[in-house]
């Protein structure tokens, strides 16, 4: 492409954007709103994922050892646990360690535990903390090992874990469906909006064809126009998401402490990487689709 032509294309694209003032603003608005919703859902989805992963990390089976079991039964139990194919981690927690943990948890009120220390007085039991390779398998595995000899009882937070997994799965599914639908809508809307600006200029395109302009010569200004509109439309949601998310993170951290969140800087980088090319791509795609019909002269 010659420099002279490039200048002409850029100039034409800019002139066209200004000439179609309101239409251009509408195009930018459509891109911005679509990408804003898309971006917001991405953020929610990413954080729900993070939260789910976090919860999964914490999900474990606690197996309390039957106090009446002898040393041989205990060793046999440990051997079976360690060789279990679905268990990723098997960790023995003695009742002394359990007492230490309880003390730490109680903090200032640890003095209440005085007198319960020592081999004889400790009311807590020896236990194993087990992690399954696949967190969702926890119920099945717990049911299975419950019946091993030497097991007192198992605790895996049944009644909490399952609904939680179902809920996060559902959220992820809804988010994905929503994003897919939104992306299709975006392409549709943008193509339609740009088609209107092309339609306004159909006479110009026809004359260009008659006086011997090549198809690419006609296309380029629209491609520049589309990519410029798309880019502007993408910058707006990136800014809104950056400041909005920052505020949201601050509020959540001050009010609901236990929810893990992705830092704003990281999200913004991700959003720029995703939304800018997407905006430009949508703009270009919309232009190419829209011009094609009018090139048949």
């Amino acid at each position, binding site marked *: 492409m010659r420099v002279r032509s490039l200048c002409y294309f850029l100039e034409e694209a800019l002139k066209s954007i200004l000439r179609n003032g309101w239409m251009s603003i509408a195009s930018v608005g459509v891109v911005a709103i679509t990408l804003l919703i898309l971006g917001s859902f991405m953020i929610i989805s990413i954080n729900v994922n993070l939260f789910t992963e976090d919860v999964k990390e914490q999900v474990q089976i606690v197996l309390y050892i039957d106090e009446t079991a002898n040393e041989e039964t205990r060793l046999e139990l440990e051997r079976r646990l360690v060789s279990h194919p679905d268990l990723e981690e098997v960790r023995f927690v003695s009742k002394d360690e359990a007492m230490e943990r309880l003390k730490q948890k109680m903090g200032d009120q640890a003095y209440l535990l005085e007198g319960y220390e020592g081999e004889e007085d400790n009311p807590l039991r020896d236990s194993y903390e087990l992690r399954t390779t696949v967190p969702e398998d926890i119920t099945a595995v717990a049911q299975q090992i419950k019946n091993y000899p030497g097991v007192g009882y198992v605790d895996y937070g049944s009644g909490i874990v399952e609904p939680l997994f179902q809920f996060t799965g559902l959220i992820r599914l809804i988010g994905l469906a929503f994003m897919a639908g939104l992306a299709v809508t975006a392409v549709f809307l943008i193509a339609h909006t740009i088609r209107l600006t092309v339609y306004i200029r159909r006479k110009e395109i026809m*004359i260009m064809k008659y006086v011997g302009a090549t198809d690419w010569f006609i296309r380029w200004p629209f491609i520049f126009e589309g990519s410029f509109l798309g880019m502007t439309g993408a910058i707006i949601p990136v800014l809104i998401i950056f400041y909005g998310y920052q505020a949201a993170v601050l509020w959540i951290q001050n009010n609901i402490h236990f929810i893990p969140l992705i830092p704003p800087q990281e999200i913004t980088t991700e959003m720029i990487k995703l939304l800018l090319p997407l905006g430009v791509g949508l703009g270009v795609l919309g232009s190419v689709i829209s011009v094609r019909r009018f090139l048949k002269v």
Partner: protein
Amino acid sequence: MIEIYHLHKEYEQGVAALKDINLTIDRGEFVFIVGASGAGKSTLLKLIIREILPNKGSIKIFGRDIVRLKNREIPLLRRNIGMVFQDFRLLQDRNIFENVAFTLRVTGASTREIRKRVPLALSLVGLKEKAFKKPNELSGGEQQRVCVARAIVNRPSILLADEPTGNLDPGTSMEIMNLLHDINVRGATVIVATHAKDLVDHFQKRVVVLEYGSLVSDQERGVYINAR
């Protein structure tokens, strides 16, 4: 320069717009294509600039069969053929200068070339003083002159005019026809599709008569034959 052999064009509805047309037009000729509406005049011009393709036959321009042109070769053909329309087709949001410069811009001409050639074309059609007016500030005849200037600014060897006086009063029509005649005298081959009987009779040029898609008469220094 233009050689047409056994040209046949049928539109989708099965209507034959042109039937077995044979026609040769030499360099520097001035030809009127006449006939009633629907006789096939516009179809013939559209075939010559390759806006549409024929069902049968060939059209040789500068010795090349344009029916076989690749899509990317069409622009090059059109840069050698100027086109004047009945409805002018000017861009209302640009001034006269820009409308004429448009032809040069889309072919990648330099600014220097544009500044040299556009005023030349405008003075040829007598509109140099109105270069910076918008089309809607001009009369119909003046707008058609702009259209002519736009068609000739890159000096094509062929100028096609499709009913160029269709929207103009008789006096103005004569001026436009004189202008096309001038352009012909300067060396371009000019083909005018029209049904303006008085003008055709006045100029005493070659007249090709189309009737229901067939070529029924082709006379040197002819007159308008009202075939239908």
